[in-house]
């Protein structure tokens, strides 16, 4: 269809009609119908060197094709002498024992490609089947001679996606670091981590609520359990609930997803059990409001103004409601502690709340709160990831600088290409 796009508007209708006629005639069978030559125009030169190879690291459904452009396919020629290319694919009869899929595919198929393009990935192949390709240029003067692939091309199924090797290495390094530090911590190696003020304040906030005889409000974000920030928020909830159970403070958790409600009920129940106060647990304090963000916000702000909670905790994923919560909570005089993985909402929490866990700190919080060695081990793993990031950044920037300063010198160019293209380029 790209070809039609380039036809001047007044010929558009004609082109559409022609397209329909071609479709109806089943224009695939014998290749495309020859274009109507415009008098006085010469035929475009043919494209050159059509090569087809199996697309690497895939499920065997794609073939990479490459060719050199027709000599008439140049931007200087106005009007264009080449309007596009047509690529014809012919599926060869499969060797004995072909699967059912073979017979269902079209024998030949034609792809319309725009001018100035020298490569194409045919993603509609059947694994293990052989294909023959033919290519020619199309211009106002007609169609060029045809070039063919040297032999049949067969797409193969691979078991490992080679383009993702670099990413696999990084994944192994980061996950390996987390697991290694966790294991080391299990064996009793003591680990030091810095202070985070917001986490110290959590206990105090619950204490204050108890003294004032007012509830603690916990908002586990507004996203579902498929967000890891919500999982981290629920982990924090279980600690806050334990403290609350300990102090016999009331904790209220309105949720915007019923899966989160389920998880929060489980977490709070577990916390009350652990604090040995199972009798005080009230499941109706952890309830579903509505999946709609702002209906939920309307309910929560209304609740805040009426019940005046003494401590508000916001952890998880937040969007626009962050500021509504923070301002309303502030107006009722609550201590507010927030943590979110949404970079866009951090400013509002920083401006509106007493303490804010910024980004990564949210995910570190449950480790700090439990002080369990395994959890602290995972923090060390996160730090190892940051060291890796710093090393990659410094190495990359130094290489990029070297490339810029000594443009003709090959080693840094190759190293940079490996770093950004292979190690950081996958996926």
């Amino acid at each position: 269809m790209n070809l039609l796009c380039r036809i001047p508007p007044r010929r558009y209708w004609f082109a559409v009609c022609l397209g329909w006629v071609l479709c109806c005639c089943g224009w695939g069978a014998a290749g495309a119908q020859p274009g109507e030559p415009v008098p006085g125009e010469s035929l475009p030169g043919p494209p050159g060197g059509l090569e087809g190879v199996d697309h690497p690291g895939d499920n065997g459904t794609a073939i990479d094709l490459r060719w050199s452009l027709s000599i008439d396919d140049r931007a200087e020629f106005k009007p264009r002498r080449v309007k596009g290319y047509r690529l014809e694919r012919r599926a060869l009869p499969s060797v004995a024992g072909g699967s059912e899929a073979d017979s269902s595919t079209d024998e030949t198929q034609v792809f319309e490609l725009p001018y100035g393009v020298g490569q194409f990935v045919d993603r509609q192949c059947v694994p293990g089947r052989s294909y023959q390709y033919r290519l020619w240029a199309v211009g106002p003067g007609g169609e060029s001679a045809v070039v063919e692939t040297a032999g049949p091309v067969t797409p193969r199924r691979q078991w490992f996606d080679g383009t993702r090797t670099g990413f696999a290495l990084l994944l192994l390094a980061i996950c390996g670091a987390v697991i290694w530090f966790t294991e080391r911590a299990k064996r009793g190696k003591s680990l030091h981590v810095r202070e985070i003020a917001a986490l110290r304040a959590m206990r105090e906030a619950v204490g204050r609520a108890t003294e004032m005889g007012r509830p603690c409000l916990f908002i586990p974000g507004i996203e579902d359990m498929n967000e890891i920030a919500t999982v981290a928020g629920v982990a924090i909830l279980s600690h806050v609930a334990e403290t609350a159970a300990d102090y016999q403070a009331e904790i209220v958790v309105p949720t915007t997803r019923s899966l989160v409600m389920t998880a929060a009920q489980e977490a709070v129940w577990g916390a009350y059990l652990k604090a040995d106060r199972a009798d005080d647990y009230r499941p109706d304090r952890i309830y579903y409001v509505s999946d709609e963000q702002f209906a939920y916000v309307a309910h929560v702000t209304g609740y805040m103004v009426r019940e005046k909670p003494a401590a508000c905790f916001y952890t998880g994923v937040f969007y626009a409601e962050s500021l509504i919560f923070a301002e309303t909570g502030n107006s009722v005089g609550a201590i507010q502690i927030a943590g979110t993985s949404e970079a866009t909402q951090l400013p509002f929490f920083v401006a509106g709340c007493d303490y804010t866990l910024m980004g990564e700190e949210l995910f570190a919080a449950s480790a700090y709160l439990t002080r369990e060695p395994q959890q602290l081990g995972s923090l060390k793993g996160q730090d190892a990831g940051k060291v890796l990031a710093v090393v990659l950044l410094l190495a990359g920037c130094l290489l990029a600088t070297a490339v810029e300063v000594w443009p003709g010198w090959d080693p840094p160019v190759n190293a940079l290409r490996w770093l950004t293209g292979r190690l950081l380029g996958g996926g």
Partner: protein
Amino acid sequence: MAWLQTLDRRWIFLAMLLAVALPQLLQVRVPEKPTPLVLNVFRKIEELPEGSRVLISFDYSPSSEGELAPMAAALVRHCCEKRHRMVLMTLWPDGKPLVERAISRIIEGEYAALGLQAGRDYVNLGYRPGKEVVIKTIATSLRAEFPTDDAGTPLDDLPLTAEVTNLQDLDLLISISAGFPGLKEWVQYASSPLKLPLAVGATAVQAPQAYPYIPRQLLGILAAVKGAAEYEVALGERYPNLAIPERQDAVRRMAPQLWAHLLIIALIVLGNVAALVSRPRGGVR
């Protein structure tokens, strides 16, 4: 100055109401000039050959309509002017009526004279639940998520989509995004792995998050009403028929913006004056 310290915030609310309402009632207009990030998007659409396939995803809900509808309208108008063929969809469940409204108001309303036809010049794919998974799926197979368009016609029966296998067959992706799933997911699962040109319209909140993706994964951003207003001005310069107030919704909306911004700046200054004069110990936080 003591009154500033104890100022009831409802006075601030009242001032804000007036700052926004008065310019609207008096219908004030302020001038505007397109900035490079907006021009990048404008030029891309302008330079695409006529009839290119452009995907526009309305990834927002009515709650952000005030901010995003003008830029959606401007982009759709530009595509109509250039006779680009539009594939419209949404990743938000309540975005479906917004797509339908854009079609009935702009494609079939303002541009009724062009006789643009559903299925040939534009396709409404509607909404599919699945959030970012939808993007990932259509990156490899459009039909796996959208076997039919919103009206239930198989994609193979529509001239526009008959030859579209996946996102790679499109010439430009546009996401008008108010959050998740939105621009970040389009970058993560479409423009970044497939190396496809992606332009985004974003709410003001989303926009700062988009800057890190420029220029490799994003070609430009229309940020909030200001971005839309700049786009409308750019459109108006190129197509004088669009330089009329009815087609410059965002430009009109910039007047309340200006006054409200000035109010907030004044409030910041006042807040600091109050703090300096009375020299409180501790502070607010």
